[in-house]
């Protein structure tokens, strides 16, 4: 039977009636139309469905939606300020880190979780932070470049 629950997605409150078996990825995509969160492997192996829950990268394809009601859910749609891209989005675009783009939202959010804690990561720390996100197009090279460049840009912004 459906239950009423409040979800806080990208700082907006949504009251929804959902089945208890519904996954977070379904609620985001099908109920809220936030299709930036991607569905790919369905078993938590590829990271395409990564969202941030209270700042922590979380796999929306393995998360029952009701378990995250009331929590701070951040999706790819919540990063840019209007048409101004988040620094990580900007460096992904500028460094050619996006090819087919289907893994990009998950990659960007995993990178955000890292950079929100550590503005000066080593290449190895970047790799570990993104090790749960699979990409088939890029060989990850330009993704690493983009995250390191974003770290530098965000660091300058934080400590001008």
């Amino acid at each position: 039977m459906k239950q009423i629950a409040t979800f806080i997605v990208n700082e907006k409150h949504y009251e929804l009636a959902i089945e208890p078996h519904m996954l977070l990825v379904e609620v985001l995509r099908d109920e809220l139309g936030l299709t930036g969160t991607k569905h790919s492997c369905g078993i938590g192996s590829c990271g395409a469905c990564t969202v941030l829950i209270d700042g922590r990268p979380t796999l929306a394809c393995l998360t029952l939606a009701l378990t995250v009601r009331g929590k701070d859910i951040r999706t790819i749609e919540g990063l840019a300020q209007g048409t101004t891209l988040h620094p990580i989005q900007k460096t992904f675009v500028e460094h050619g880190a996006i090819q087919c783009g289907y893994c990009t939202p998950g990659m960007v959010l995993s990178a955000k979780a890292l950079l929100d804690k550590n503005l000066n990561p080593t290449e190895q720390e970047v790799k570990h932070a993104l090790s749960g996100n699979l990409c088939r197009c890029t060989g990850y090279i330009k993704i690493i470049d983009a995250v390191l460049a974003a770290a530098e840009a965000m660091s300058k912004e934080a400590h001008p």
Partner: protein
Amino acid sequence: MSQKLSVVGKRIIQPDAAAKATGNAIYASDITIPGMLIGRVLRSPYPHAKIKRIDKSKAENLPGVEALITPEDTAQWKKFDRGLKDLPMIAGGYTVPADEGVLNERARHFGDAIAAVAAINEHIAEEALELIEVEYEELPFVIDPEEAMKPGATQISDFAGSNIGKHMSYAFPEGDVEKALGEADCVVEGTFTTTKQEHCTAESAAAVARIDISGRLIVWSQCQLAHLARREIAHIFNMPVRKVKLITPVIGGSFGQRGSLCAEPICIALALKTGKPVKLVYSREENFIALESRTGFKCNLKIGFKKDGTLTAIQVYMLGRLGGYMGCGPMASAIGMIFGLGHYRCPNRAGEADMVMTNTPVSGAFRGFGNPAIMWGIEQLVDEAAEKLNMDPLTIRLKNIKRAGEIANMGLCLESTYLEECIKRGAKAIGWREKWGKTKKGKTRRGVGVATMTHCSGAAPLYLDHSNAFVKLNEDGSADLVVHPAPVGQHIWGALSQIAAEELGIHAEDINIVTGDTDVTLFEYGSDASRSTYAVGNATLMAAHEAKEQILARAAEMLDVSSEALKISDRKISSRTDPKKSISVAEVCYDAIYNFKGECLNISGKCSWESKWNSPPAGAFFAEVEVNTDTGQVTVIRFVTAMDCGKAINPMAVEGQLEGGMQQGIGYGLTEDYVINKDTGVVETDNYDSYKMPGILDMPKTKVIIIDEPDPKGPFGAKGVGEPGMVGVAPAIANAIYDAIGVRIKDLPITPEKVLEVLLDLR
């Protein structure tokens, strides 16, 4: 050819990148239409079985189920060749029989489609699948192609007298191979096997279909070959082409897999049955079992050399596993032979292939299309010969690679090649001289290896390589470019914008790409065979050129000079001799459209382009590996790809193609293994928990070297670069392993078990 270029060669940002970065790009699987139903497919649990009876009643009565179709319902539609490739070609009028129905009453492989439902949501659709009762009659099945070729093996196809779906011969045989091998000073030979690599596109196969108010069928299709897909869909469903509109959405990866029809036929069947919009998105597991993946081969290779290292003969036999339907697997052997026998000068060449049907998921095109399979063996054997002849692996290659002016792999003149530069610059970057051939000791041993290759820029002259472009200039001097390559992530829109802008003398951001709708776009063969930048690029260049001539003619009149005296760049037309005489492109275009002197013209250009040439890209691959002799674990620690892909239209995009190819090559070499249970026919690797594609931690230090020399035939000198990047990776790794530990692995992938086994044999 040296040209001052202002747009081509720049690292421009892709027009679609920001939408992808923000989650605003709409992929097929993201589409929602009011009233849309969700499709799901019931698949065979057996590798070979006759469907004796299907009881639909329980499933049909489930509330929310709107349609349930079985082979009986789909028999009204024509069978098809999902590979779409019945274009004339020189290699003996290649055709593939249409052997596959939308649904089939005999399952020919594990995962073959038996029935499909459309329901109001996915949960009900899935529940309905469980309620369908199917009575199967299990049939004898065959997994191994050699078994399938034996007399008395269970017969898979309806059309062939045996399970040999297609016998292919090398398209450019020459000389007398047997004689040359007999006379050779050194003969190296071996059997090399490769696996059925899965594409692992990030987005699953997906399609959306609906019937519009005039009864037309609208299909959102990820197909790389949109116009061929439209033709085939019209054919299957007994419609005139004009009744089908195909829309290409943003595509979440392809690599050749979407070169065939995937989710479209079943999705369309459900839409026709219900009259409602239907979306069908395959699960990850269905991607593994229902779609085409790379053709697995067993290659018997024999190469002859003279004492001085001159290559004199190559003989090839390829045995390929097609699967339950023909698909586009047969061509993998033809392409493999053309490339495998193509980049070295060799007066005696012959090749044969048997492409065999088995009760396994279907094989098809995947980046490199047969080339990686054959180079896996050829490039190891060349190293073996070098050792026997006491030569360096680089020297033997430099001695035998073709030079400009010779006949290239596709039987056409090799207009340009810089493979020598690739070998030399790549060797320097990996530290060849310091690292190769040194005595290795200890538990972990390092080695370096090389492999070289060539590929193609488009499908000519094998296929009819036909592209169209239309460009029209707007009143503000911007331009709409109407083209229809598949945007699979290769940055093709950006590359075509650069080509058009360079020719028109405007900026890349002035170009608006109009695409993805077969109602609007002219015929386009599509995006495969590393052809979009080269062939669609040439069409774009010629269309832009035609428009430019109109701009210059009108500008000449407006400036009262001769058009030959004019140049166009940076959105301006100016006189070469009198710099004061100048006018903007925008002014000319505005005056042409809003012309009150009775000379209205929408400046435009169109080109129907048929490639008569093929400028093969070529490259050298260098791996440095570390082998743990206790565990057999191989780690690639450094990888260098040096590529002659002509002039790089956008070096950043070219690097992206080569880096991605590297990753797929490392997976092909070391970890990706498509496992089919021999006793049950069940695919055991159907998701990323069991099938291991390289993650970010598996990537070595990498370097990409682009030679960046223009080719005379490509648009602004470009060649194709989509596929070559993965072709030489696995043999370079194998050769590096040999350098490290002195053993050869001839069976892909190179797992620790295989390495350990040969090491133990050695001890």
